[in-house]
């Protein structure tokens, strides 16, 4: 006699979680063998650690222009491994603080963008072919074709330069790709037998979307989220270079802008302007590598690309 699981809610959910845990560990096992993905993950872990520890590493006084103690515009020395800016602040300290700011903006904007994108993508896909899909689809297409930077500039100029507004602007201009990918994935999941079964058992649309469709497209959303962080950090940098960043928080882009306006180019203060850009490149590259690796884990056909 086969051991039949008793049909109560708690064991059903335990089974579900068990299945998800197995799925997760399979995914992780595949990810671990992806060299580029692991490289990205290690780099990200390093930057993440710096971001978390930054309040311990840098005191607020040392990055306050009025109380900085270094000689202005000094090249790297033993005391200031990356030199100083025109206020005499240590560039290394600016970089450490910037890690926290840039990652925060990137992650927060991504969370918002992916929430919007996933919601619209799920609804548009689940109701594929209906009026809801046509309206949402047109909206997604519109946000995909308009020049995002110009829209971001107009919005940032109107809303004003605060960290929250920058996050909103980036979220609004970067959710559409996620929506399109999630929509395509949802269209496929919608046709699977278990969705039909749930509907036959009388499940509402809401419960089918949240309990059956969402868990199945979640890996796609996750991979897309990781790729979106890269886009968000690049966007923040670009907006900050254009002078639309929050003047009170020192992101990497903000440091690049200050260096550019502070004559780092004409006077050859390379130690001021090169490191923040390299930091952006490293983190963006790391997120992109991780995102691609995740996509490969999810869809092995991509492995040869």
């Amino acid at each position, binding site marked *: 006699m086969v051991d039949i699981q008793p049909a109560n809610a708690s064991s059903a959910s335990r089974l579900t979680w068990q299945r998800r845990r197995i799925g997760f560990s399979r995914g992780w096992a595949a990810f671990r063998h992806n060299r580029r993905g692991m490289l990205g993950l290690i780099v990200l872990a390093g930057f993440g650690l710096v971001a978390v520890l930054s309040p311990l590493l840098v005191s607020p006084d040392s990055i306050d222009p009025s109380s900085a103690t270094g000689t202005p515009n000094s090249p790297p020395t033993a005391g200031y491994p990356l030199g100083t800016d025109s206020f005499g602040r240590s560039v290394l300290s600016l970089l450490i603080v910037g890690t926290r700011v840039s990652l925060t903006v990137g992650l927060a904007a991504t969370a918002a963008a992916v929430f919007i994108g996933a919601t619209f993508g799920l609804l548009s896909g689940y109701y594929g072919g209906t009026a809801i899909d046509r309206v949402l689809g*047109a909206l997604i297409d*519109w946000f995909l*074709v*308009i*020049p995002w*930077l*110009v*829209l971001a*500039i*107009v*919005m940032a*100029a*109107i809303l004003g330069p605060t960290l929250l507004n920058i996050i909103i602007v980036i979220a609004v201009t970067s959710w559409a790709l996620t929506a399109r990918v999630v929509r395509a994935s949802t269209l496929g999941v919608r046709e699977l037998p278990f969705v039909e079964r749930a509907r036959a058992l009388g499940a509402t649309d809401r419960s089918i979307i949240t309990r059956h469709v969402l868990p199945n497209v979640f890996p796609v959303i996750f991979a897309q989220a990781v790729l979106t962080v*890269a886009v968000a950090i*690049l966007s923040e*940098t*670009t907006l900050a*270079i*254009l*002078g*639309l960043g929050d003047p009170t928080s020192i992101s990497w*882009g903000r440091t*690049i802008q200050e260096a*550019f306006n502070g004559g780092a*180019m*004409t006077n*050859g203060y*390379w130690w001021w*302007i*090169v490191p*923040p*850009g390299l930091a*952006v*490149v490293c983190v*963006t*590259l790391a997120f*992109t*590598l991780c995102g691609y690796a995740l996509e490969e884990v999810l869809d092995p056909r991509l492995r*040869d*690309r």
Partner: protein
Amino acid sequence: MSLKYIARKAGWALLTLWFILSVNFFLFRIMPGDPVALLARSQRLSPEALDHQRQLFGLDQPLPQQYLTYLRETFSGNLGVSILSGTDVVSMVAARMWPTILLVGIGTLIAAVVGVLLGMRAGWRRGSGIDNGSMYTSLLLYSTPEGWLGMMLLILFAGALGWFPAGGYSSASSGGGAGDVSSHLALPVLTLALGYVGQFFIVMRASMIDVKSQDYIRLARAKGLTDPAVRRHHAAPNALLPTITLIVLSFGFVLGGAIVIETVFSWPGLGLLTYQAIQTLDYPVLQAVFLLSSAAVIVANLIADIAYGLLDPRIEQV
């Protein structure tokens, strides 16, 4: 290609344009306070000019009326006056158009040619040296903020090596001849081309990989054609199709694409105008740039759709 296909695409373009006009209208009005009060806050307009502006915006009228007024003014080519200079926005934009078209046109063209040639070879021989090299380079370029890349090129080629001027359109001393302008143009074009080349490479490569497994390629090989001949005469022309769409689309980004690069190199085009408008919160100029750049993208999209329909008759059935 049927008229119905063209009509559907044109209808979509008009709908998108209308949506952009509406976004432009509402963005301008969700700002704290009335737009004209903002004009006054950011200076330099006489009270008469402010009253004139108010009338122009029709701010004493109800919102739907304002909306209609706005549409009418926009379609009759009136985009308002600059807060900073008091000049007509349309003529300001027109004066800055040429340098941007020059910069983005040449940059996009170089990026497209290089990207297509590399993608063609990389896709044909996957995993080869040229494939891996180009792939990693595109990834690296994708992760590099364009503005910062421009600054690095400036430091290297204008600062340390002194090969090129550090910015601007021409030098006062050498009078702005073609040679002078092109030496000023070199670094911004290089930055733009480096920023764009990756996408052309990726699309061409993927398309080449798709084409490679088609039956007509196998037939061409079976006929005994050499490998380069198959690639050049049978694979590449078919693989070019999606890339052509991308090329047309990127010309639509002419207006919006060069903001950061023009800022870094003080290249006096629409991008620099936009940057200056950001610094002074010159809203009418920002609105005009948004409208024009979006319109350019929509038109480019329409052209790409129609070109695609002409080049590949199968597309109509989709």
